């Protein structure tokens, strides 16, 4: 069984690759290359997978919420992804952000169910999803 919980965080970013010229960056990233950055209300879904215990629960919701709050939301919410989150390697696309969230959660994952999936909606129209590697 999988259980999915939805969280929200607001962050700003600018997409600009140091490997490309200013003109190439403008062409590739378009509006997302605006020098002063811009922001999103991201919607993050964390899915965990495991067995339902005798008490009828697969996971303690509060333990999951506290973990995501401490490891992810506190680091990303109301932050600038380029300047405030040095752990985010590479251009702060939502693809790279999803991989960062996976890494942050898998380091010392303390819960019995395994981390199964991470899904981030940057806007209502653009969503990015990955199946987590085995913890």
């Amino acid at each position, binding site marked *: *069984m999988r259980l999915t*919980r*939805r969280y929200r965080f607001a962050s700003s970013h600018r997409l600009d690759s140091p490997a490309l010229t200013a003109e190439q960056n403008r062409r590739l990233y378009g509006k997302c290359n605006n020098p002063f950055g811009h922001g999103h209300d991201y919607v993050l879904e964390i899915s965990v997978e495991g067995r*339902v215990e005798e008490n*009828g*629960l697969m996971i303690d919701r509060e333990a999951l919420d506290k973990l995501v709050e401490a490891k992810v939301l506190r680091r990303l919410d109301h932050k600038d992804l380029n300047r405030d989150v040095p752990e985010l390697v590479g251009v702060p696309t939502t693809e790279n952000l999803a991989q960062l969230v996976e890494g942050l959660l898998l380091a010392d994952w303390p819960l019995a169910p395994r981390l199964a999936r991470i899904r981030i909606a940057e806007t209502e129209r653009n969503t990015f999803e990955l199946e987590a590697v085995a913890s």
Partner: protein
Amino acid sequence: MLHPNNSHLMFLTRKVEFSASHVCANPAWDEAENRRVYGANSNPNGHGHNFVLEVTISGQPDAITGMVFDLRELKEILNREVVEPMDHRFLNREVEPFDRVVPTTENLAMEIWRRICPAISGEGVRLHNVRLYETADLFVDYGGQEQGEVR
């Protein structure tokens, strides 16, 4: 042009909603222990949710009808097995087996699977997934695994 021999495995999903109240508590435990395990869900007088159920069926479109499964039949199954018995009910008191099984969202999803699975039949047709939203921010997916088995 139709290509009836070029049939893909497809997934068909139907959504229904029902509103119900429940209490998540083990009668063998005291109130403090129940609160520790089930949190606010253990309030003895109950509370309610607008549950949203998404049922997914897999199969290949029939060469004649062009359908994986008759949606009208699926609607009737979901109404008969889930919506009619559970909508506007207190699960612990009015819906079997929740007089003796704690009606967590996990247990409710498994019970819904047990209720509708026997009614979904046809060549290559199978119940694929039951997704049950307790709120917009919390849902479970159940694919029919045995109790205790991990997908």
